[in-house]
């Protein structure tokens, strides 16, 4: 079953003065359940825009986006918010935890917006996920009391709390040293392999992309390569 079906998606920004700029040009992409996809490409190629569309934070100018069997490209803000809440998990480069909230509150945050889960249940789920990412004794701490790697693990726990169809990771190791980076990537890989969680990752580091199975390269708003990571790495190194 396909988690993501993107058909002929374009994104055009209209500048002040009537000039328009095409950032994505007729992109087609299918991601199956259980895949681990890395998206790479030079700066300004449209990676972020593509990620925003995948993350339902933005809508394509034209084309269709079916996420988990739902057509989302024409939804309004609140419908998109609901899709993000129910079907997506985000991992950001800057962790994006709420600094004034405890770790358990941070992890449980998406569940508040789900509206149908009791506070005790939210806490229970958040605690078990913190345990899973190896932060059992830290539930009452605040993000600024723990290391960057730990913060990113909290963010992973938060991304998993709503049982998403898809995890979107935007440069998840960009703020981490290489050792911690490896740890986080191994963890994501483990999640993908053992639990069959679909992950789409944006990075510009080949080392990070190497943890994925499949590589999608975007150059100048179009998909320039779509295939196995290994094949690409062996074929041409950039």
């Amino acid at each position, binding site marked *: 079953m396909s988690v993501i079906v993107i058909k002929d998606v374009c994104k055009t920004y209209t500048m002040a003065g009537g000039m328009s700029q095409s950032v994505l040009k007729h992109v087609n992409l299918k991601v199956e359940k259980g895949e681990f996809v890395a998206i790479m490409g030079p700066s300004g190629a449209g990676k972020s825009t593509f990620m925003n569309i995948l993350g339902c*934070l933005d809508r394509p100018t034209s084309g269709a986006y079916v996420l988990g069997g739902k057509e989302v490209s024409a939804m309004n*803000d609140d419908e998109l*918010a609901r*899709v993000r*809440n129910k079907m997506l998990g985000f991992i950001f480069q800057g962790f994006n935890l*709420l600094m*004034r909230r405890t770790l358990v509150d941070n992890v449980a945050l998406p569940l508040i*917006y789900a509206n149908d889960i009791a*506070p005790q249940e939210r806490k229970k789920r958040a605690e078990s996920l913190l345990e899973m990412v190896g932060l059992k004794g830290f539930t009452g701490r605040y993000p600024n009391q723990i290391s960057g790697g730990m913060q990113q693990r909290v963010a992973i726990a938060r991304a998993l709390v709503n049982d998403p169809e898809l995890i979107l990771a935007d440069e998840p190791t960009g703020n981490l040293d290489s050792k911690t980076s490896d740890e986080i990537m191994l963890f994501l890989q483990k999640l993908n392999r053992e639990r069959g969680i679909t992950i789409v990752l944006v990075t510009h580091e080949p080392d990070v992309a190497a943890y994925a199975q499949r590589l999608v390269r975007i150059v100048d708003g179009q998909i320039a390569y779509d295939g196995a990571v290994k094949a690409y790495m062996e074929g041409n190194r950039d």
Partner: protein
Amino acid sequence: MIKSILHEACLSMTGNKLRSFLTTLGIIIGVCAVVLMVAAGQTVQNIIQERFVAMGANLLIIRSERPKATVKTSGPTTSITLEDATALRHLRGVDTVAPVLSANAQAVRGTNNWSVSIIGSTPEYLRTANWEIGAGRMLDAQDVKRGTTNVVIGDEVRRELFPFDDPLGKTIRIGNQPFTVVGLLKEKGSSSGGANQDSSVMMPLLTVQRRFNRYAKLNALHHIALKFQETEDLNIIEQRITRFLRARHKIKDEDPDDFRIFNIAEFVENIKLIGTVLSILLAAIASISLVVGSIGIVNMMLVSVTERTREIGIRKALGAPNSWIMLQFLFESVLISMAGSVIGLILGVGLAQLGGYIYNTAVPFSLWPVVLSFTVAVVVGVVSGVFPAYKAMKLDPIEALRYQ
């Protein structure tokens, strides 16, 4: 859902305690000021009202009033006479009548002197004016009949002329004539006209007629103080007196009255109105500080929205609907103004009662400051929260997440 939003709003508020407190302080001061001012206004109103009721709600003052059309005569004239007063005694519904002839003079005793108002009347005056003797005796029938030089002095006159000794039996000079103090009046306070009644000196009517009469007629009176029976209706007794005096003065039907009846009840109503206006005015002035306080909330919320742009982005990315974001910020401002109102209310009521305790005055506790402060809390909270909350809601999650 509301509960969760409230919870989040509370957490955000307590997350920055100092700022929340300072913002709340604006509302606290505002509400406290309004409550205090309203209490002050009402207290003043009550005190004035009490004084007037003490003067006697069933007291009428009958004064002469010169019809405008009549030819001007030199010197003050009056149409009210001692005979009118005597006749009124027998009118149905009348309790007591005191004829009053007044004058102003300087009272001197040794090196002390004080400007006094002389009340020439009969022993009935005390009962009519709801006044009491503090020491000594009131003028009696003999004094009135013979026009003696015995006087009863007001509390202030006593203080000024006899600061250290007992005035009873002592001689004072009023208008350069010797008088003997036989009694002291209890302290009374100001009259309806605002004059200080404690600077009065009471003399037998005949004495004033002989020595201090300003009028052309010997039997002229300044006014008649009349107390009617409690069972009588004010309007009916006024009409009865009017008919009676018109007949006595032989006034033709088409001519106006040559006298005027004043009553305390009307005066009390007017004073009440003044008190109400005063309360509203004070509250209006105090509410300026409420406006300033609510501007403080707007300011704080706007800063908060900017400062928490990234948080808003995170919340939106994780699936917070626009309404959630908006409500959270709205609740925060309502909570702040609510907390401010409650504290301000408690503080205001407490300070008002403390003030009442210190000045030994009953300060009324009314419900409407409570209602007012809660209305204010919600209105101020919503009004000052709407714009910042709308701003937060409109933030683009992509932009907000990128915000440093």
